[in-house]
């Protein structure tokens, strides 16, 4: 069986060219180690999806590995518009990606539908706007507007989305892949469960008994998981609740770099292509910015209370 592996192995074995890839995270628990490895392995023509995309999606688009984007939003947050995203759409650099536009209600609901085996679900947004006028690669399957068979009212249906692979970063998982989170969820649970298989990157691998002490925290069961990677600081420069903060300064660095094509490519060389793996990345971070800045990212701790499931 052996699901525990390196990120290199996981991406090589489970992410294929042209896959539809769901990538979890919402600044919170962004699987950046996986994203860097996907770029390093130069996967081709991916379709990527998540609600509220950020620097991670911008970077993949800039790296030229993305053909299509099923999305709702892409920005660098406080650092403004996604530079690579803009260059792609406005200038075709390095290539013009195709975008299917949804919203932070409709896309998570499509993933919910995918996760629950529903072929489609009704949503109450997008009506009356230009989001209904534009259709890209999904064409007529982007949505259907019907009269409800129950009350005749106009009802918008959006199709289930079932990614080929989902990649999420979580606080902890066991060796079989039972994955646990706490804190902001974004669309991680629905996205991971909608996928045909899941790569779980985690801050720490724990034993099955630890999982069993608090099973209500599990969002993905072992049987959906193809690979488990212990990848501490795997979400940097995003954050993981209970482990480390967002690295705002690194966000500024990325903004500045990605302002120009050259800057972006230099950034990619330094932080992705010339880097072996996550350990090497953290080493490079500490050498570049100093251990005290690294240490500052570490979360303070304020533990809650344990609970018992006994009877």
């Amino acid at each position: 069986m052996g699901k525990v592996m390196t990120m290199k192995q996981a991406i090589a074995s489970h992410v294929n060219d042209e896959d539809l890839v769901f990538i979890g995270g919402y600044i919170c628990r962004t699987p950046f180690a996986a994203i860097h490895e996907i770029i390093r392995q130069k996967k081709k023509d991916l379709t990527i999806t998540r609600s509220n995309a950020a620097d991670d999606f911008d970077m993949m688009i800039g790296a030229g590995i993305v053909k299509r984007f099923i999305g709702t939003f892409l920005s660098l947050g406080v650092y403004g518009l996604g530079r690579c995203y803009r260059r792609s759409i406005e200038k075709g650099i390095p290539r013009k990606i195709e975008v299917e536009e949804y919203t932070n209600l409709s896309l998570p609901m499509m993933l919910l539908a995918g996760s629950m085996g529903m072929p489609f679900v009704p949503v109450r947004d997008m009506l009356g706007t230009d989001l209904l006028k534009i259709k890209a690669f999904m064409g007529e399957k982007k949505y259907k507007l019907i009269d409800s068979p129950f009350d005749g009212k106009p009802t918008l249906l959006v199709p289930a989305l079932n990614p080929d692979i989902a990649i999420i970063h979580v606080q902890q998982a066991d060796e079989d892949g039972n994955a646990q989170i706490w804190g902001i969820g974004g669309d991680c649970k629905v996205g991971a469960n909608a996928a045909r298989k899941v790569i779980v990157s985690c801050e720490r691998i724990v034993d099955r008994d630890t999982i069993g002490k608090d099973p209500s925290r599990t969002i993905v069961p072992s049987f959906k998981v193809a690979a488990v990677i212990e990848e501490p600081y795997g979400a940097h420069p995003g954050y993981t609740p209970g482990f480390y903060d967002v690295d705002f300064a690194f966000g500024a660095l990325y903004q500045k770099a990605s302002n120009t094509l050259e800057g972006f490519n230099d950034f990619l060389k330094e932080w992705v292509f010339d880097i072996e793996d996550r350990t090497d990345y953290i080493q490079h971070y500490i050498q570049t910015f100093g251990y005290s800045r690294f240490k500052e990212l570490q979360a303070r701790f304020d533990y809650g209370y344990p609970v018992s499931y006994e009877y």
Partner: protein
Amino acid sequence: MHRHPDDYIKPELMACCGAREIKDGDVVIVGTGFPTMAANIAKYTHAPNATLMQESGVFDARPRRPALSVGDPCLNPGAAMIGGLVDIMGMFLQAGWIDVGFLSGSQVDKFGNINTTVIGDYNKPKSRLPGSGGANPIGSLAKKVLIIALHNKKRLAEHVDFITTPGYIDGPGSREKWGLPDDTGPHVIITNKAVMRFDKDTKEAYLATYHPDTSVDEIISLTPWELKVADDVHETEPPREEELKVLREVLDPQRMIRIYEARGYV
């Protein structure tokens, strides 16, 4: 009566304008910046039972600093409920529980339609913007939508280049025709110059109040549609002392709100 210190900056006034639209007990969906500050001013003054949520999955957060994004780490510790997008956007917003939503946009038009997708032609864009995110569903489904905008002819428009988020769409009857829920839609546009409200019949934004250092004429000249003016148009009430106190002492002691001045909110 209220005291009104005159050392406020425009973003502070705008946040106070937002706060005054919130009633006690309202359930409010916020993003970052203005909206959060506005909603919290309300909570610390006249609306202690208002509750706030962020689309990322957080309800009633207790951040120790102003959140810089809807997924900011500071939203986690101490919140009352944390789930995911389907909880906030589906279980609360789509299910009809949200009283107030805040939105802003690169372009806002006279019907309160908002563009956050593209400047220029969609297929040959002058500028690609982030996209809808949570804006479209909030604009579709929140009972009162409060819109924050810069007041100039670039940011306000007779018609936006792209309707990302529905205001009153093409005018009276449009939301009903599309089946958007009753009693939802834009409630007010709060700019750095004025507060505009929507005419019940025409669904067009009209001038309700002008901010202290401007005038009806100036605002008309900065507005790209033929702006109607309320019969009772008057000056916007400046920030009250207690509102500023909350803002400066509790919510934003480092006065991060100043970054909005750099973005043109003057």
